């Protein structure tokens, strides 16, 4: 059992670890729908270039990821795989819900096959509103998440209200 699990980390060490963690977030891309392309633009486009924030895209699988971006409509058929992959991620893990569909159902609020918000299945740390949000909005969400990670106490992970970008 190491220092982290014991819950008795000296504060400077926590800060150091947090800094390291926030600049090496492996982001697992869930390009489900339209938002997935804006996520793709944030990852793949030279204009947005997510890597300058210390966010590393394309891990080989969920087991190597720290952060997952749910970008797009979550359907009832898709929910079990999402839940399963989320459980495969190692702790500490973070979830960004990108776009109206995964926030609350969006334009499909009355559909028979759409889950009205991914937060019904997994806990969400950052909500990025928009349909779809611009890549800049996603980047802001990531920056806000990094600020929160910096403040985190290793022993008791911060569990407050989720961030809402632009609110």
């Amino acid at each position, binding site marked *: 059992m190491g220092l982290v699990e014991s819950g008795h980390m000296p504060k400077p060490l926590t800060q150091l670890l947090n800094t390291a963690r926030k600049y090496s977030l492996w982001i697992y891309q869930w390009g489900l729908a339209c938002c997935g392309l804006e996520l793709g633009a944030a990852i793949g486009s030279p204009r947005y270039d997510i890597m300058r924030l210390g966010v590393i895209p394309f891990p080989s699988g969920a087991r190597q990821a720290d952060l997952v971006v749910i970008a797009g409509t979550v359907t*009832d*058929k898709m929910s079990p795989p999402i839940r399963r992959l989320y459980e495969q991620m190692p702790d500490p893990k973070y979830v960004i819900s990108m776009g109206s569909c995964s926030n609350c159902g969006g334009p499909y*609020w*009355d*559909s*028979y*096959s759409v889950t*009205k918000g991914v937060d019904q299945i997994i806990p969400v740390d950052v909500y990025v509103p928009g349909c779809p949000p611009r890549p800049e909005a996603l980047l802001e969400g990531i920056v806000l998440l990094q600020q929160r990670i910096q403040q985190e106490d290793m022993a008791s992970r911060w569990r407050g209200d989720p961030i809402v970008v632009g609110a």
Partner: protein
Amino acid sequence: MAADAAAGEEAAAGGTPEAESPAAQATATTEAPAPVDERRQPWLEALQAELGEALVGHEIAGGDVWVRVDSRAWRRAVVACRDRLGCDYFCFLSGLDWKADVDLAAEKVWDPEAQPSAPAAGANGGYRTGVAGGDTRFQVFARLFSTSAKVGITLKADLDEEDPRVESIVSLYRGAEWHEREAWEMLGFTFDGHPGLRHIYLPGEFEGHPLRKDFPLLSRDVKPWPGLVDVEAMPGEPEGGGDAEGADAEGAGAEGGEG
């Protein structure tokens, strides 16, 4: 460019009924001397010759042709389209439910002229149907297209309300397999001879057929439709006029408490 198509349409619009008037007069359902569509009229005649009594309704309008056949002749009609008319391209197959919908119509509170959901009565069960007609609640329709003649045709057939069942056309057009699975899932139609009718979109435990008119959208039962503001009058004026853009902010605020 679109020389062929344009010429055909112009001729149709200009009206040259003398070209094949005897046949046209004999077969036209509409009594008005409508201009004859020169590319589609021969198709209709060929189908009439092939199917005879089984062709129960037809219409040519707006550059399109609809043919309604008896459901027992469904497969025969598709064979005729493929072999006689040269339809090589399978466009889609789907169906529709003519039933005036009870729950959803009641929820369309913004529609003052919503159809009252009349109980099924009368010769055609009280269903108000579209072009080429319809006698029962369910209708299956498919669209085929000839890439050489550049003409398409929509086939329709009425299906029984209790047991909507029709012959599969997968052996004629392999692309129909997924479309028939979708129609089975969405509307509950059975296609005899289909290699495997199973869910295509919805999870296996899903109950009901969503595209049937009596399938409720539960979210709408809980919360009234917020699109009401679309037809609200502008805040300053009694009713009508004005642009719809400004109505959103004010209208939404004013109507929030009521909804």
